[in-house]
């Protein structure tokens, strides 16, 4: 009995460089080595992704002379390994040299210079010459995306981006193609990334160890606006920026440095510095109003949050049939832009085109959002430019400002006053909590004592809670990363789960883990930042959006009631389905007649496919053949007719016929005959 106890208590150990190290459930040998304080280099290992074992940097040598990739083997008790034996060192160096041989080594002009893993390791291992030839052919850059830049000449084929997009985001936009020397990492069919289903989350760039995937820099436009005397330059700072910008200047991770950032922006020459959290308070009022209306009527639940532009694009692509469940609220960034250009310009008595709104965001997808056509008026964008935290840090460095030593400065008014509700938007669970802080009040006019809804907090992938809101049992779900929402959606569609409100953020940890933030995006760092956000919340005088006197002022002066017509004009939007792939689809029949022909498209996109549209297509082809009018019909299979809510769909000469099933080919045939008769009648007339 006691002997048993003993073995249970004694932890298993292994020996690293002659020293015993305990094994505590680490998932592989590499994790144990790192725990022992040895920073084994890696390119293709990321603790939140699957192990790949391709870069050959994490090698160790065993007692019996075997070389192991420590990322891909379990930590076995009793193992004896060396992490920098001469053999291991030599192999590691050669592997590194091979990677460098294939890499465009123009470091001085690379955005990642200074934070590049490859550069760092080349330095650590003292690589002073690369003996292998240079890749002579330059591949073109992909500048198509508003969010990220792909430079395949710098790619070392570690596959980190591939696994991030596939495993964490559930998308799989990038993958390996070709083989041997011509292997590349690319979107489908070698297309530009803007021409595929990429949602601009930037997480691929956040894990890329080299400069092959980087955030698109728009610093030049910012300087140009600052030095343009005709422009009043207004900056809004997103909630998650305040706990991350300090990282770029060696401050403690998670430290709140909003005051320093405000001071730096003033020194750079920004005219007005405001807080996106103010607009987030506004979002809370609109989104909660919308939610309680849905709750009262019981219609169109669950309500999904809509402040994450990567999630919005994802929903437009993959859940076009559920877009009416998305909150119609614009994101805080866009609410701010709209209020600034519509109303604040009046207050300042300037033309909207003379105001230049810059957002400082943790996010690359915000660049895409700000450029969406629905957020422009007469060619003037509500938000003129989006800079990521990385970019603003870059500008501050460029301006020679000693950030760490700056005296804190305070925000401008009126959009510099915020409550804790607006600040917690920066972390997963924050939007849901902010809505819960307001829901009871908006429903009954009574304030709750409770402020912190800790049941929705944390960094677990998907969290669920039931919260009592004035007698309604509200089912809340919170998810972050798109892979998580994909899994949850499947359960919801199968009827296995039910929720009233669902918060979705595309980035791990929410905006604090945005791809535009500086530093290595690890779970440890996100935990620190999350703590920072909640610390900022508790330090606020006011913590509920409905208590924000300046938000109230905006309603009194300009918007009227919560959810009013004016508020809808200024603060809401609508969504529409996006075809996932460009192109005409698959041509099935082409009428040979010289005269007019009827165009028929049968959708075989996901929703319609699942409803049996391919069977219908097969039957329809036969019907057309038998009808004797085959020469007057063009038939194709389309990938999306953007009528997913009414799938399966067919388009006959521009007219959509929805609600079809596998057996409904005859209905379509009737429509085709009608269209043919129409054409004939027109010709005769």
């Amino acid at each position, binding site marked *: 009995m006691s002997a048993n106890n003993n073995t249970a208590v004694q932890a298993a150990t292994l020996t690293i460089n002659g020293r015993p190290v305990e094994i505590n459930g680490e998932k592989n040998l590499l994790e144990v080595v790192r725990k022992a304080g040895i920073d084994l280099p890696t390119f293709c290992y990321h603790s939140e992704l699957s192990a790949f074992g391709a870069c050959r940097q994490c090698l160790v040598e065993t007692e019996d002379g075997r070389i192991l990739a420590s990322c891909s083997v379990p930590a076995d008790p009793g193992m004896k390994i060396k992490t920098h034996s001469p053999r291991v060192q030599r192999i590691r160096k050669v592997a590194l040299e091979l990677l460098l041989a294939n890499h465009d080594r123009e470091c001085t002009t690379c955005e990642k210079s200074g934070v590049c893993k490859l550069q760092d390791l080349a330095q650590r291992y003292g690589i002073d010459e690369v003996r292998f030839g240079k890749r002579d052919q330059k591949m073109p850059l992909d500048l198509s995306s508003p969010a990220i830049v792909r430079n395949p000449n710098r790619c070392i084929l570690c596959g980190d981006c591939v696994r991030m997009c*596939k495993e964490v985001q559930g*998308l*799989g*936009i*990038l*993958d*390996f*193609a*070709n*083989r041997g020397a011509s292997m590349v990492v*690319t*979107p*489908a*069919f*070698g297309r530009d990334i803007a021409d*595929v289903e990429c949602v601009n989350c930037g997480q691929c760039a956040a894990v890329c160890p080299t400069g092959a995937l980087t955030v698109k820099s728009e610093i030049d436009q910012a300087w140009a606006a600052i030095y343009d005397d005709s422009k009043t330059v207004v900056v809004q700072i997103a909630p998650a920026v305040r706990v991350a910008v300090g990282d770029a200047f060696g401050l403690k991770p998670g430290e709140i440095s909003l005051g320093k950032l405000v001071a730096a922006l003033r020194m750079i020459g920004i005219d007005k510095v405001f807080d996106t959290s103010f607009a987030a308070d506004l979002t809370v009022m609109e989104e909660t109003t919308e939610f309680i209306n849905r709750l009262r009527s019981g219609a169109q639940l669950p309500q999904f949050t809509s402040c994450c532009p990567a999630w919005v694009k994802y929903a437009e692509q993959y859940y076009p049939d559920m877009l009416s469940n998305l909150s119609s609220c614009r994101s805080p960034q866009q609410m701010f832009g709209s209020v600034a250009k519509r109303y604040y310009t009046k207050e300042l008595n300037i033309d909207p085109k003379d105001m230049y709104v810059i957002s400082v965001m943790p996010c690359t997808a915000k660049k895409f959002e700000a450029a969406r056509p629905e957020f422009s008026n007469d060619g003037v964008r509500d938000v003129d430019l989006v800079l990521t935290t990385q970019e603003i840090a870059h500008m501050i460095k460029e301006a020679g400002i000693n950030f760490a030593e700056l005296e804190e400065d305070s925000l401008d008014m009126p959009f510099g006053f915020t409550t804790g509700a607006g600040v917690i938007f920066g972390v997963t669970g924050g939007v849901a909590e902010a809505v819960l802080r307001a829901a009871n009040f908006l429903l009954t006019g009574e304030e709750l004592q409770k402020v912190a809804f800790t049941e929705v907090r944390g960094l677990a992938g998907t969290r669920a809670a039931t919260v009592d809101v004035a007698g309604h049992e509200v089912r809340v779900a919170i998810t972050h990363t798109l892979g998580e929402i994909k899994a949850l959606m499947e359960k919801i569609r199968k009827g296995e789960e039910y929720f009233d409100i669902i918060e979705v953020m595309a980035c791990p940890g929410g905006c604090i883990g945005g791809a535009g933030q500086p530093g290595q995006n690890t779970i440890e760092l996100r935990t620190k930042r999350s703590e920072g956000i909640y610390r900022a919340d508790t330090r606020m005088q006011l913590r509920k959006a409905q208590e924000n006197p300046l938000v109230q002022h905006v309603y009194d002066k300009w918007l009227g009631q919560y959810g009013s017509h004016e508020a809808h004009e200024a603060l809401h939007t609508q969504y529409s389905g996006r075809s996932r*792939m460009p*192109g*005409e*689809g*698959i*041509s*099935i*029949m*082409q009428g040979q007649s010289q005269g007019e022909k009827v165009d028929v498209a049968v959708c*075989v*996109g*996901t929703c319609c*496919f699942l409803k049996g549209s*391919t069977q219908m*297509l*097969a039957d329809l*082809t*036969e019907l057309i053949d038998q009808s004797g009018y085959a020469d007057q019909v063009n038939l*194709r*299979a389309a*990938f999306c007719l953007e009528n997913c809510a009414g799938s399966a769909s067919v388009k006959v000469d521009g007219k959509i016929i929805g609600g079809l099933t596998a057996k409904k080919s005859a209905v379509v045939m009737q429509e085709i005959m009608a269209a043919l008769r129409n054409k004939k009648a027109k010709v005769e007339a």
Partner: protein
Amino acid sequence: MPPIGETSELERINQVIAEYGNNQSALIPVLQQVQEVYHYLPEEILTYVATALNLSPATVYGVATFYAQFSLEAKGKHVVRVCDGTACHVRGSTPVLNAIRKKVGLTAGMKTTGDRQFTVETVSCLGACGLAPAVVIDDRIYGQMTPEAVSIVLDELMKEVD
């Protein structure tokens, strides 16, 4: 361009997909079927396959480009493969190749004629070195080719085409 997706063809692909129960393990057999039906892997069909198997188009593209048995380019009705292995090269495969390209009307960089009648490729070795220089047209092998001889063979084929 002629239709690339007769339903009967799409159906043959659907059958293979159904056989595997819309499972991702179907990918390679499905691609083989697509290759057989269309003689290449059209982008549209690959996107369709991705939807049906719940894979990303990039993953399907990756597999399609990994295996040499798959081709992403449309091939002509007749595929002409000129051997450029050492033996054939030494015995004059280059003039033969040039003659073929000229005859069917291919300009630099093109592999398939605009009317999709001919695709001309080179291969490293057909294993028919005794017949050098060797040319394979639609699975028939022609040995000891000269520019003149190959021109006669092509004339015959082109008559059929008309």
